[in-house]
């Protein structure tokens, strides 16, 4: 009797799966894509523990334990790239995070719908521009000899500023370009959260004699607190990652001491110097740190009573 049931059940499962055949067919190319381009490379990480030899390939190269990691952790350039990654990310976050919230609050106060729409369109635009173009524009504006900004400064009698050619100023320019590019885009999430703030709270505060500013501090901000916390945690969990485009395109030989971040370093090491094992080991180190930060941030969010991010 029991055996019969399972047979029946098994048949039922098969029939059910057959009903879903189109869904599985739809999933097939995507699964194939993920296996080939995401999971096979994960196997390739093994070369971080091998002495990679071009002729022997990923499979044939000799294992060497943690030799590659020992070499990397002893390298000055590696730690420099870690420091620069954290430095640039932290500074960008410190400027862009509060500014994004402030601009969102400012936009939220606008009653004229058309005015708001136009301003939003303009603010979102830079998000869609490639880093090559941003770097081109930046060099036109900030070049020391003939950049527009320096031309204006000099016509006012000031000295030209090496925005792109001196390490301190380069960091300033890098942060500026990032903020310029993403600040408008970042407001979308906050504006969405702001539309759901309870209108009656404002009315109550207004009747109690709260000023506009007090209403923002005591009503608006607490209402979007959970979005703010979630966004902050998401940003912090990306601290160890900087896309390659911005530092590679804005950077130049004179500012390498601050513009060389982990991604550009793995690129130069791996592609330009063909040190596959070293580059892969750094990538693995970065991924692991990312996961640790992510898990910690998620734990923290849950501990303070917010929704997690995973």
């Amino acid at each position, binding site marked *: 009797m029991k055996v019969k049931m399972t047979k029946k059940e098994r048949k039922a499962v098969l029939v*059910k799966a057959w009903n*879903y055949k*189109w*869904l599985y067919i*739809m*999933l097939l190319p995507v*699964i194939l*894509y*993920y296996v*080939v*381009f*995401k999971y*096979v*490379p*994960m196997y*390739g*990480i093994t*070369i971080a523990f091998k002495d990679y030899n071009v002729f022997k390939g*990923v499979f044939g190269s000799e294992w060497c334990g943690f030799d590659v990691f020992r070499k990397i952790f002893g390298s000055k350039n590696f730690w420099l790239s870690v420091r620069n990654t954290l430095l640039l990310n932290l500074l960008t976050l410190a400027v862009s995070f509060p500014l994004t919230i402030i*601009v969102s609050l*400012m936009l939220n106060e*606008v*009653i004229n719908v058309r005015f708001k729409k136009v*301003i939003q*369109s*303009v603010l979102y*635009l*830079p998000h*869609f521009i*490639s*880093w*090559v173009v941003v*770097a*081109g*524009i930046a*060099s*036109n*504006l900030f070049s020391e000899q003939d950049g*527009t900004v320096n*031309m204006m400064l000099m016509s006012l009698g000031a000295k030209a500023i090496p925005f792109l050619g001196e390490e301190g100023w380069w960091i300033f320019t890098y942060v500026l370009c990032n903020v*310029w590019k993403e600040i408008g885009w970042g407001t*979308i999430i906050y504006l*969405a959260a702001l539309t759901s703030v309870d209108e009656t709270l404002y*009315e109550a505060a*207004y009747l109690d004699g709260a000023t*506009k*500013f007090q209403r923002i501090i005591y009503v608006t901000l607490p209402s979007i607190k959970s979005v703010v916390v979630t966004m902050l945690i998401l940003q912090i969990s990306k601290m160890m990652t900087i896309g390659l*485009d911005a530092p*590679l*395109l804005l950077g130049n030989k004179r500012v390498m001491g601050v513009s060389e971040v982990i991604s550009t370093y*793995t*690129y130069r090491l*791996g*592609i330009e110097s063909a040190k596959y094992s070293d*580059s*892969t080991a750094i*990538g693995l180190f970065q*991924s692991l740190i*990312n996961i640790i930060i*992510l898990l910690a941030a998620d734990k923290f969010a849950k501990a303070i009573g917010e929704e997690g991010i995973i």
Partner: protein
Amino acid sequence: MIDRKLTVGKIINYILLVLIAFVCLYPFLNVLAYSVSGYNAVLSGRVTFYPIDFTMEAYKQILGKTQIWRAMSTTVQVTLIGTALSLVLTTFAAYALSQDDLPGRKIITGFILFTMYFGGGLIPTFLVVKGVGLYDTLGALFIPQSVNVFNFIVMRTFFKNLPESLSEAARIDGASYMQILVKIVLPLSLPIIATMGLFYAVGYWNTYFDALLYIQNPDKYTLQLRLRGLLFGEELNSAGNLEGVGMQVMTQSLKMATVLVSTLPILVVYPWLQKYFVKGVMVGSVKG
């Protein structure tokens, strides 16, 4: 609405917002002004907000360059084919995995989401792309990055929120999932498809690093790669140096004209899709 009257604070707020918008827009104005100014004006650094000694010379030169045209056509191809492929794959995956009763749904979803947190990294991926024979082909610019996990989540959330009654009625009438997707779900999903299409297309259009990594043959250079060469040396600088100062100054206008030409498609498409993508980002922010 409690207070509709114009206060000092409100006026300051409006003025500040206009200033911020101006800061966002000014770099584009600067580029435009440079691209259509005469070269004496550019040389003396007088160009700031508006063109001086208006000329279209830079555009004539840029549009006469076969390299630019070829790069443009390469980029258009990659963008169109890549976006189509991405949309099909993402829609299929998102629709299939939005069905709550599909056996194995959780495992497959986890399998996809995991790649958001962990990956092989630069070199292992590079070796795979090389290994499957995509190196130095245009396919390397869209096949290895055809599905974006974030976009997948956004679409799946959208499909999940569609009213179920319509699909259910069609199921009872004996329609297959493919028929339901094509005939019922897709017509209801145009806003999200437009949004995803914009995100993918902009991504492909702006791709610089993948082209740098995978393309060797200069005939297959994409617009961004070509642009980078024009902006920061490699090609025009050497030519400019040979032909003296006049030529070199011309390059500054030429550079900015190229910047505008290569950004124009985005600037043209952008306003039409704007009303959609805000919604798309918001759907994505709601965790699925």
